[in-house]
């Protein structure tokens, strides 16, 4: 029963991929794209009015010591250990800011809400959060704003009016630019590549692919787009799909993009096992821990994601700037310590900057 189901699914996915192969469809969505400039000039920030909230009757905190609590989705995992490390680093650099991290032990909306509620009662000056649910967290954050507490989000947003600012780790066109640029650097301007994605309808992946297509057409027009295949974020399927690509295109295939944190290590594994390291480049979105073996073996040169330490660091700086009145509704940028000026986008979001590329030299510094 299980076996027939699996084979039926395989036939089905094969037939869809066959029909896709005939068209020139790439797996991107139909939404309008906004490719970045080829030389990395920041895009003109569309003037969008501030849509965040405002703390009520906030005391003047300019230059004063403030206590801040950081409430991630959950504690005890590498990713959020890295963000809280960044926050602690920023608090130390800033000086007049006392920050601690306390989060639920499982990614549970109720635990997180209760925790924030308790910190509101205990009278903190600021709350940093990564929401487990954008809507469920909003009432408690609004309550914090009503009591004059500064509220800044990172990693996962709430409703805009329930917080002041949100530090956005990466925009779709930013990820797309870094992916294509890294690939072009590895396989050259006339190389050809294929993509392993989750499914054609997964919103984030479809958006990234559409932006990659637009950016490639604009900035690296001679690269050839061979095919996009689906792999359901399944380890074995991702491996098989990457393997098929290697066999199908042979020497014509210069590079593979992995669009999910499952597909990228699986593609790297397929390339390694086919003995094609050095001939077929793998570039993709993935977490460093999964990629360390392949990066160490020099089979993969660039892993694209954002730097969670910088994300926490930026969030802490944004909160301090909001406390000091250096970041007000309508501002277009904010100073964030060693990260320099960060841009305000979409009304009340702060863009962390270009995505981070993990390479052989820096990947050892990350554990998530």
């Amino acid at each position, binding site marked *: 029963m299980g076996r027939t189901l699996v084979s039926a699914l395989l036939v089905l996915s094969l037939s869809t991929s066959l029909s896709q192969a005939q068209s020139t469809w790439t797996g991107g969505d139909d939404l309008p794209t906004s490719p970045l400039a080829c030389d990395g000039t920041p895009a003109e920030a569309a003037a969008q009015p501030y849509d965040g909230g405002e703390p009520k009757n906030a005391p003047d905190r300019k230059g004063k010591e403030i206590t801040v609590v950081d409430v991630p989705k959950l504690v005890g995992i590498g990713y959020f250990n890295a963000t809280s490390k960044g926050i602690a680093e920023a608090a130390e650099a800033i000086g007049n800011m006392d920050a601690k991290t306390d989060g639920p032990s499982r990614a549970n909306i109720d635990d997180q809400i209760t925790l924030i509620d308790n910190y509101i009662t205990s009278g903190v000056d600021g709350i940093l959060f990564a929401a487990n649910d954008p*809507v469920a967290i909003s009432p408690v954050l609004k309550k914090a704003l009503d009591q004059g507490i500064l509220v800044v989000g990172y990693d996962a947003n709430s409703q805009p009016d329930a917080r002041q600012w949100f530090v956005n780790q990466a925009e779709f066109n930013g990820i797309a630019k870094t992916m294509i640029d890294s690939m072009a650097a590895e396989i050259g301007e006339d190389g050809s590549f294929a993509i392993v994605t989750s499914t054609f309808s997964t919103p984030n992946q479809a958006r990234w692919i559409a932006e990659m297509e637009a950016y490639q057409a604009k900035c690296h027009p001679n690269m050839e787009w061979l095919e996009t295949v689906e792999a359901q974020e399944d380890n074995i399927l991702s491996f098989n799909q990457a393997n098929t690509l290697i066999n199908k295109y042979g020497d014509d295939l210069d590079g593979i993009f992995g669009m999910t944190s499952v597909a990228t290590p699986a593609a790297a594994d397929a390339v390694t096992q086919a003995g094609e390291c050095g001939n077929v480049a793998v570039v993709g979105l993935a977490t460093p821990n999964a990629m360390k073996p392949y990066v160490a073996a020099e089979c993969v040169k660039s892993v694209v994601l954002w730097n969670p330490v910088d994300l926490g660091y930026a969030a802490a700086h944004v909160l301090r700037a909001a406390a000091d009145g250096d970041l007000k509704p309508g501002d277009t940028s904010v100073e964030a310590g060693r990260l320099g000026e960060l841009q305000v986008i979409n009304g009340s979001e702060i863009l962390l900057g270009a995505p981070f590329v993990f390479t052989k030299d820096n990947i050892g510094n990350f554990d998530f």
Partner: protein
Amino acid sequence: MNYRALLRHETFLAVLLAIVLVVLAWQSDRFFTVANLLNQGRLMTEIGLIAIAMTFVIATGGIDLSVGSILGLVAILLGVFWQNVGLPLPLAIVAAIAAGTLAGLFNGLIITRFKVPPLIATLATLALYRGLAEGISQARSVRGYPEWFYVLGQGEVLGIPTQLWILLIGALIASIILAYTRWGRTVYAIGSNEVASRFSGLQVEKTKIALYMASGFAASVAAVIFVSRVSTTRSDMGTGIELDAITAVVLGGTSIFGGRGTVLGTFIGLCLIQALKNGLSLAGVKGDGTIMLIGAVLILAILISNVFERSGSR
């Protein structure tokens, strides 16, 4: 029934609660304020409603592990009935609560008709109902309820959180039923000796089915309050809430083997846990430390209660 032993456990708990309140108030000046205590009442209502029904279930020697999943299922159904089916919200609430009560009835039927131990039966429906909730919701959440609905979970009546009234009234009715009615005594009798109860002509099966239905109903009401409090529905709502409820019940002196327990004890146990969670957090203890301390208090309370019982009542 041994009233003296019961009295001892609850008195001891109440003293413990008083000590905890004093210590915590001393640790943080923001703990013992009317606003904070009322807010804690708001936060403990969902667990409280479930724990009250759970007191009855455990007093018969049973257990209901599926309450968290029923909560999740009812929350999802509320959203689906309202948004996808298009029922008016009050009707959707009633329909969702009815569905949750049916889920409880289903528990009761499996346990009584097929003689499946309650632990196994509700462990199975814990998975079943959560799976249903996830399947129906397709990982989508329903939001944007009308403003009046939030009065239930975020509003106040006469200066006290709306849902706290529901909890207090529910607790009052439940404690009267358990302590002073024939039906309540049937619950204790089943817990003490099910075979003897059956031979005495008590309606064991009917009582049990009614209890599991009541447990499903309480979880459903908690679900509606929860949705109103957080203003959205998600299929993972209420995961793990069964353990919080059982902890409060057991801490409150209800014997896990049945035959003993009061709603008052559960209520004090509930307040004790909530006070510890909140007060320790305000005093600067992190989440993981708080959980450890609650575990220690639970063991301590039960140990001391056992010592009292042995030396006192025999």
